[in-house]
């Protein structure tokens, strides 16, 4: 019986008067890799940010490991939890951003250990041991003391992955982790993500790398026009291409 890690129930998101998406429901089981594809502006980033509680959402609920995050209901009214509680809940998810967002004034190792020390209350030695382990896993054991400005984009993104995964989240969220990279650097980052997938890390991945999504995903979600328009196995989505919209979208990627 697979364990349900992430459950998105009927979520609806508005920016002011613009509805970004509605009726979005999605389940991710332990060890699963779920990819989200869809055209630009279809709300993929926004959905990930809702899961990570960086965005508010107006309707529905998100459960991680069986517990609702971000909101609770008091006297019949839906209320956003305090920032402090939300900060705790964010530890359940690990986020990797398109633009890396490493802390430029900290070494690679310190980027990884900051959260371990400040949030997980580890002492420096424990944190550095874990930090070294993860930086080694992403192939950067010789860059522990380097600052982000001394690293290539691909190396920076691998540090960012180490920083997120070192917190031991229930689920990793990737938002177009390779879109800001030069083509020759994409491979090294995808390999790291693939290695995490092989190790059984639960992941929700927004990507434009269709071949990668086809290879690593257990399930693929196609977002279109403010809704989840198709869900299926990689074979169902990329080979059978059930809906006309999906066919049209995938035609841009020659898959």
């Amino acid at each position, binding site marked *: 019986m697979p364990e349900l890690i992430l459950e998105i129930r009927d979520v609806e998101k508005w920016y002011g008067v613009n509805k970004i998406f509605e009726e979005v429901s999605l389940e991710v089981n332990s060890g699963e890799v779920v990819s989200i594809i869809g055209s630009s502006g279809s709300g993929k980033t926004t959905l990930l940010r809702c899961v*990570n509680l*960086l965005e508010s959402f107006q309707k529905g609920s998100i459960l991680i490991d069986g517990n609702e995050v971000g909101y609770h209901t008091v006297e019949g009214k839906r209320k956003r939890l305090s*920032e*402090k509680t939300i*900060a*705790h809940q*964010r*530890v359940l*998810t*690990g*986020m990797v*951003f398109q*633009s890396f*967002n*490493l*802390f*430029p*004034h*900290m070494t690679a190792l310190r980027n990884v250990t*900051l*959260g371990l020390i*400040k*949030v997980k209350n580890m002492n420096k030695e424990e944190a550095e041991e874990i930090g070294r382990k993860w930086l080694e896993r992403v192939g950067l054991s010789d860059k522990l003391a*380097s*600052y*982000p*400005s*001394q*690293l*290539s984009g691909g*190396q920076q993104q691998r540090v*960012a992955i180490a*920083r*997120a995964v070192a*917190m031991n989240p229930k689920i990793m969220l990737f938002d177009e982790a390779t879109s800001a990279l030069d083509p020759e650097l994409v491979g090294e980052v995808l390999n790291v993500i693939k290695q995490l997938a092989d190790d059984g890390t639960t992941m929700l991945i927004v990507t434009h790398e269709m071949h990668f999504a086809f290879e690593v995903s257990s399930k693929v979600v196609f977002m279109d026009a403010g809704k989840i328009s198709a869900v299926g196995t990689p074979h169902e989505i990329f080979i059978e291409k059930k809906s006309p919209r999906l066919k049209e979208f995938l035609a841009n990627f020659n898959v």
Partner: protein
Amino acid sequence: MSFIDTVFAATNSLLSGALNTILSALFAIIIGTISGILLGFLLCYANRYFRFPVRLYVDIIRGIPGLVTLFSVYFFLGYFLQGYGIDLSPLISGIIALSAMCAADVAELTRGALQSIPQGQTEAGKAIGLRFDQIFFKILFPQAAVHILPPWVNTATEMVKGSTLLSLIGVSELLLTANQLVATNGNALSYYSLIGLIFFLLNSLIQFLGARLEKRLTFFTRIKGDY
């Protein structure tokens, strides 16, 4: 008496003048910097009911001549406090006025520096579960400090120069001391050159310390290459 002799004869008053200049500038810089950073923080993150009065304060102080601020503090605040039996000395009034000016400048510098940090930094901090205070002290402020420092050195030297305004409310700082020496001995050019040199040395010291601090703070922006 030659010029040199009069300088030696006036060593005590010149020293106490220099002391008053240094004291007023130093206190103004310390008090102004601390409160300015606090005000800049409020300009960035406080709700509008807190932000509005701070904005008003910063714009007014920055928009009026320093002398007007100084006279306002000395005459109006002094008069007001006298009602409560508190006597505001010229030196204290001067320090309050200079601090107020320094704070307004530093508030604006701090706001600009904090706002220039990409939103992604805050989000990356949130994503690993940091609270706002942790994000501010560990991630945002260290980066903002790098932007604040160079113009802050400029503000600090302005405070040293601005301390000469205090001569107009009777604080015996360097300028007033020189005025008095010129009045008794003549030789204006020599005396004003002498205090000019002292001001120049004081500000050179500030710039030297600022440059050293900048080097330490910006290590991470200077290292490049080595892929």
